[in-house]
């Protein structure tokens, strides 16, 4: 806990991973990106944004005592809810099997925001793993963060669902920049092909430029990590998937550096 007491008015980089379609590996990628970022020296918080069917804790075999719902319902201390996987990697867990919590209203979202911001100040990078689909909480998390990462596989239904989410977020919530992260691809060429196709459709119909964040190849170490309830970046650091994640984490680290640089510029100009 010694880590969490500095930077009182500090706002970290926040990004959320969404997909539209379920089962594309969002949670696994979130956890592994977070682990890789922590290895690079950043203090990272993973927020389990799947408020009705949480599974970050399951994927990591964590013993959860307090969840986001406990903080919202009975004012549990948010900082005590954070479970540390590594000294620099915290997880804010949610509850599983609580259907009504997946449907939060604007007031609940305001409360959620007021809970997350003070916790966030103790970290450099926040990664939110949202639920699948296009529910109100998914939309809210996507407007709450700085960066929107869309996870998809080369499967056409994953592509269509990701596109649908992009469409709603750009049309109704004025989000204009989306970073695509391709998962379970055969190779880089396949990932590029899927990205370019989706980017063309988005440019034509939505007048949007989609950014390519990268791809994570099909790799046996990914399912091995799930079985062992450990990040694959930790148990198979030299695997293809882990190497890819580490390279994408470098991009994300760049976002943090960018934000910190712009803050300094603002600070100097203001001071």
């Amino acid at each position, binding site marked *: 806990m010694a880590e969490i007491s500095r930077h009182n008015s500090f706002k970290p980089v926040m990004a959320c991973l969404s997909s539209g379609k379920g089962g594309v590996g969002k949670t696994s990628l979130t956890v592994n990106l977070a682990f890789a970022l922590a290895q690079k020296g950043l203090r990272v918080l993973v927020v389990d944004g799947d408020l009705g069917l949480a599974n970050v804790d399951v994927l990591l075999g964590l013993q959860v005592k307090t969840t986001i719902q406990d903080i919202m319902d009975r004012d549990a201390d948010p900082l005590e809810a954070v479970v540390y996987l590594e000294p620099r990697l915290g997880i804010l867990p949610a509850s599983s099997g609580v259907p009504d919590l997946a449907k939060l209203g604007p007031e609940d979202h305001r409360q959620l925001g007021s809970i997350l911001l003070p916790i966030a100040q103790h970290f450099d990078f926040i990664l939110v793993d949202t639920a699948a689909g296009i529910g109100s909480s998914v939309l809210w998390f996507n407007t709450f963060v700085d960066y929107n990462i869309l996870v998809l596989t080369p499967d056409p239904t994953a592509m269509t669902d990701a596109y649908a989410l992009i469409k709603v977020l750009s049309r109704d919530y004025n989000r204009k920049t989306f970073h695509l992260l391709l998962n379970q691809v055969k190779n880089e060429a396949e990932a590029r092909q899927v990205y370019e196709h989706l980017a063309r459709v988005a440019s034509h119909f*939505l007048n949007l430029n989609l950014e390519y964040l990268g791809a994570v190849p099909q790799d046996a170490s990914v399912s091995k990590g799930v079985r062992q309830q450990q990040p694959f970046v930790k148990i198979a650091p030299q695997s293809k998937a882990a190497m890819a994640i580490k390279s994408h984490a470098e991009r994300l680290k760049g976002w943090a550096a960018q934000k910190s640089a712009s803050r300094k510029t603002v600070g100097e100009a203001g001071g």
Partner: protein
Amino acid sequence: MQKPLCTLNVCPLGAEECPLCAEVQRLRSECAHLRELSHTDALTGVFNRRYLMTALDQERERTRRTGLPTSLIMIDFDHFKRINDTYGHQAGDEALKWASQVWLNSLRRIDILCRYGGEEFAVILPGTRLNAAVRAAKRLRAALEKTPVTLLGRSVPITASFGVDAYRHTEELTVRAFIKRTDHYLLEAKIKGRNQVCCRKAEKGKQTMEVTVDERAALYGGNIPSAPGPARKK
């Protein structure tokens, strides 16, 4: 409502039959009675227009906070003047009282039935989506149609027209504007021949995964039209 300065029911000085305490009690109960009167319609006993405005404003705020829509039904009797002209104004009043009771029996306890003025009524349906409010309005219409009122010993059929709309948390709308918008659908029901329910057309696919046929074709088959799409123009 202002809080009372003191909530004591016994004399603070210990006097057994304190006239001041008795007077305070009397004023309190009169105040409660007047409050009741101030939001009740004297004829029908349902809420009045003043209460409609207050309650609608509160529900609007609740919608803004919870995200659950507030629905409104505006009701106007059909050819009410004929009833007054044929059976007299007292009979007309009887018909209004009769209809209020019929509707109260068809509504939920949380719904707020108000007399808006004359032969016009309104129902606030808190936390209710448009489609559920339309179903409720259809119930009210059918209930009135199938239960004729007895006026001067004769069974007289009465009907009404209904306009329905819902206020969503994303909208910036005053109470008056919301009533006016709903009134528009009531007018539509009148123009279309009365004794029916008209409502705002639900925006199709707004909350669903809305991907058009063209977009789907492009996503699946790579078939992107050469001309720029509609979203392209700035």
